[in-house]
């Protein structure tokens, strides 16, 4: 009996591989695996991104990263200003055949905003939701809040009936040690259906023939394989074992570009790399903190040769930035992007004027597994600061080690990369980084600064429903951040994907998220 079972399995495997040859199979070699099939189980944007092929939100980003209707067709804000009414798309079915209705939306929002959900922060203004009729939902917020749609792009809709049947209405909870059905199974409305999953080995998606939208892709299957080792990933691409990777290692780009069967897709990421300062009374050494003075921050800014970092450390592939957000982000203006100019002599003069002692020691906290070439640009900057008479102590370690030091104020100067995800709006860094620490706000305000005028501007933007008025407020706030030099922007970092010749069209998105429902493969494969 065992043997028979085995032969059947072998036959099934043979049948699968046999039929796959005639189809368009995109073999995606990612640098890591998704955590689980449940997008709400772990605050990991890669997992959410991959599962977006299976699950969809009420709204989504189009090819130009503008928000467009998805499971909702239209929406309006009711007279009380805090309730949003969404009209849902009719005739949409989940992969198991169940129809999509308002119940599903309410159940999904309840699940993601549940107390034990690690992703409840993705819906910061959410209070409650209610079914109006089968295809209408009301979402109530805790105040006027302009960015609900941006938040909703990231909130995947589950099938209520399916969750109820499988006891998956609540998110999984590590604290209580409960597992969940949705960790192993998926049932969305999206363009692809999960066919099988072997963790750390292979997850297979097949095209959803009943998708409500007109597919722009021509893929039949996606085989997602994590390949952690960069060298192996490059080898697999060269040998054609994978046809796409969303992480082509920077040092191997020339090699990949030279290969006849591989095409490298390069772009600039939205992530802006910045340096932050401490605003506490003393440094970690116990000495008085000179960084509270603007002129000292300016001295450190002018000491950095941004051009040299761009040319040498980033190999000419980064985009030198003067603003704390990238150009495509709403709220950015060209005026914000002006550069200070490299002037170490002026820096020395500023330091002397501010009475900073020669050889001032401070810690400079960098990640070894964080931004592109982070270790190298940190070393470069540390030596540039040494040249104006300071003694930065470089502290490089993995994120998991550095995060507690950073959040608890156990370090001085630090790096931070911010892509404004998932909002794709300059409100994101303003609220999370530049606002004073206060409840929802200033979670990444590790330096501990507080500018009441800036807070007032951000708070005003956070409840301004008129888009232009809101963006004006945000630009003004960003200008203040720039004038006060709260953080020093360095650059937007480079990103690189690579595809083999089998792939005809793979749109590169500056938020570094592959959206394979736009991908097309050549007819010959």
């Amino acid at each position, binding site marked *: 009996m065992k043997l028979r079972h085995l032969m059947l399995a072998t036959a099934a495997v043979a049948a699968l591989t046999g039929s796959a040859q005639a189809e368009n199979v995109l073999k995606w070699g990612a640098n890591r695996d998704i955590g689980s099939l449940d997008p709400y189980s772990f605050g990991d944007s890669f997992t959410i991104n991959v599962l977006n092929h299976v699950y969809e939100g009420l709204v989504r980003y189009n090819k130009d990263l503008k928000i467009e209707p998805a499971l909702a067709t239209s929406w309006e804000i009711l007279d009380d200003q805090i309730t949003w009414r969404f009209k849902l798309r009719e005739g949409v079915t989940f992969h198991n055949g169940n129809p999509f209705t308002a119940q599903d939306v309410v159940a999904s929002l309840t699940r993601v905003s549940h107390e034990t959900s690690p992703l409840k922060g993705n819906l910061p203004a959410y209070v409650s939701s209610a079914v109006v009729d089968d295809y209408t939902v009301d979402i109530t917020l805790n105040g006027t809040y302009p960015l609900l749609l941006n938040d909703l792009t990231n909130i995947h809709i589950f099938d209520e009936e399916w969750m109820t049947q499988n006891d998956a209405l609540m998110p999984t909870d590590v604290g209580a040690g409960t597992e969940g059905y949705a960790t192993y199974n998926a049932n969305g409305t999206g363009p692809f259906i999960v066919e099988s999953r072997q963790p750390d*080995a292979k997850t297979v998606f097949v095209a959803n023939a009943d998708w409500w939208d007109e597919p722009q892709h021509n893929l039949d299957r996606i085989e997602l394989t994590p390949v952690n080792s960069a060298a192996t990933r490059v080898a697999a691409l060269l040998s054609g074992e994978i046809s796409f990777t969303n992480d082509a290692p920077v040092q191997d780009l020339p090699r990949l570009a030279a290969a006849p069967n591989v095409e490298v897709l390069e772009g600039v990421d939205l992530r802006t790399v910045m340096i932050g300062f401490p605003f506490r009374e003393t440094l970690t050494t116990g000495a008085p903190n000179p960084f509270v003075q603007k002129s000292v921050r300016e001295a450190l800014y002018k000491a950095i040769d941004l051009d040299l970092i761009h040319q040498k450390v980033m190999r000419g592939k980064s985009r030198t930035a003067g603003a704390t957000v990238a150009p495509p982000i709403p709220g950015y203006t060209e005026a914000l992007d002006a550069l200070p100019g490299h002037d170490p002599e002026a820096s020395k003069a500023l330091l002397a004027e501010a009475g900073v002692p020669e050889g001032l020691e401070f810690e400079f906290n960098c990640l070894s597994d964080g931004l592109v070439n982070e270790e190298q640009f940190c070393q470069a900057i540390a030596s540039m600061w040494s040249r104006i008479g300071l003694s930065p102590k470089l502290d490089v370690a993995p994120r998991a080690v550095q995060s507690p030091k950073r959040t608890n104020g156990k370090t001085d100067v630090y790096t931070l990369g911010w892509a404004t995800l998932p909002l794709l709006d300059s409100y994101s860094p303003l609220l999370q980084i530049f606002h004073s620490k206060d409840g929802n706000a200033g979670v990444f305000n590790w330096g501990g600064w507080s500018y009441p005028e800036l807070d007032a501007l951000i708070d005003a933007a956070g409840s301004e429903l008129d888009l232009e008025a809101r963006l004006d407020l945000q630009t003004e706030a960003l200008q203040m951040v720039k004038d006060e030099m709260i953080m020093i922007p360095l650059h937007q970092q480079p990103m690189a994907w690579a595809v083999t010749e089998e792939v005809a069209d793979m749109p590169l998105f500056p938020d570094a998220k592959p959206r394979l429902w736009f991908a097309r493969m050549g007819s010959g494969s």
Partner: protein
Amino acid sequence: MIAFLLKRTANAAFVMLAVALLAFVIFRFFGDPVEMMVNEQATLQDRIDLRERLGLNDGFVTQYTRFVTNAVQGDFGISYRNQQDVMVLIKERFPATFELVLVATVISLVVGIPAGVITAVYRDSRLANMLQLGSIIGVSLPSFVVGILLILAFSVSLGWLPAFGRGDTVDIGWWSTGLLTASGRAALVLPAISLSTFQVTLVMRLVRAEMLETLRADYIKFARARGVPTARVQWRHALRNCLMPVITLTGMQIGNLIAFALVTETVFQWPGMGMLFIQAVTFVDLPVMAAYLLIVSFIFVALNTLVDITYAWVDPRLRDDSARGNG
């Protein structure tokens, strides 16, 4: 004998407790899992609450006791990242690692033993010198370099074998095997060779040393004098007497291979326990890290204890050292 068994088992249990303690001390330096679990928009209060729910704010002794109590019952909790039962995760990955180690061991014996005999019998011949040189390279090249070189040669240039993964697998009960499919066997070749390089040279050198010793023994000379064919003397009589230490070493090295498979698994994206551990480290997935360390050390301790007990069974002098003084 019973007293000896008890003593050995108690020793093993003590070692396990010490490993658990060490693992726990190390984890304190791994950082904060909560920062990896929540997303950018989580508030400070959310983070504090989560830390509290995970029991990370409890004292060291409380956490350690809780961990040991659960671990003894086979409960390692659920993974932070995968939200799955840790034992299930490890059980899923174990067959991959075990098959890799098994094949690597077979390769090390099949290649290492003949090579050892040849280098011993035809000393100073060109072949023996080449094998000796090869073994130095085998010992000194780190296995990830061997792995990358193999990938470069056989996957990229020649295109014969896959560079990563395990191919298709067949499930037999809870055990998943890649040995029964063509793609599974093809995928196994490069990682197994890369994992076995060190082992091959070890076996070869051991066999060579033992053979050189044995070939000088009187009974070999007698066999020769009796007119037994040379090949028969060397491969049958001499080799047989050399194999005991080789078998012991191989048994003991299985633990090592399971632990060192971690490097090979990372290079070849082999979905085994080592890969699981590496990912757990990146995400500070404490339950998985703790369980992996404990299970691997359990395998070590179990193998060692078994070997000790077998020796004692074979050689009564080892049973009770107090009675015999220095015996």
